[in-house]
């Protein structure tokens, strides 16, 4: 790997842990470069699993299969822990990868955080 690459454009914008819910807000472009940051964060959450993890993707401008791979891995870890992983705010720009990969049937997808929590 080329060294000296700073990660100035972080994709994890915000993490809120309340009661037994973790809400992770991710932003920007999730590709082979930036998905490692997301993976690290989701693995850490899985170490100490909440009843549900909600990933808010409303400010994600791009996601490729590297991002999808991270989400699938996280989904499998959550299932193993009997906890839930929910996706929120999938916008037009990332919808097509969900459709092409038929992931819209595998993930629990909601329009808003509140809807996801109470579902």
């Amino acid at each position, binding site marked *: *790997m*080329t060294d000296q*690459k700073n990660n100035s454009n972080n994709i994890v914008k915000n993490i809120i842990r309340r009661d037994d819910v973790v809400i992770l807000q991710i932003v920007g*472009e999730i*590709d*082979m*470069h930036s998905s490692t940051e997301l993976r690290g964060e989701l693995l850490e959450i899985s170490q100490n699993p909440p009843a549900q993890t909600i990933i808010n993707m409303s400010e994600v401008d*791009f996601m*490729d*299969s*590297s991002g*999808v*791979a*991270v989400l*699938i*891995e996280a989904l499998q870890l959550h299932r193993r822990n009997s906890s839930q992983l929910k996706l929120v705010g999938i916008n*037009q*720009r990332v919808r*097509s*990868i969900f459709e*092409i*990969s*038929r992931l819209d049937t*595998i993930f629990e997808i909601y329009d808003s955080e509140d809807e996801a929590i109470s579902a």
Partner: protein
Amino acid sequence: MDQQHPSKNLIELKINADPFYLCIVRKAVQRMAELVGMNEQDSDSLILAVDEALTNVIQHGYGGACDQQIIIKLRQITPGQKEPTGLEVIIRDFGQQVDPKTINGRDLDNIRPGGLGTHIIRSVMDKVEYTPQPQGGMQLHMIKYV
């Protein structure tokens, strides 16, 4: 490619085989898609397909050796007698050669991380042609019509 107009509405990029540079190529593809008059939805999937193809070169063609080179050519296809308007994308690497027939994704019903790239590329692009090059490496020739 473009014998007659060597540089008319053609962009060429040379990058290292490093995921760090993918965002630059996506920006270039986005701009070219705009040029050929693609709508936003088609442009988004085109950007995705090119990104997946490059990710594959980085991962499989070069096995993660980030100092190797990838050449990307983007060319506007102007509507002619035979073809509609579109965008031609050529990706050239100098890495491992593979039989194009072996480039296939996983069964979509067998959910696991990975194995989606080629599905995406084939479902988005109107033409997808992998060719091992006599001088070494692979060339991927893709077209998406508007």
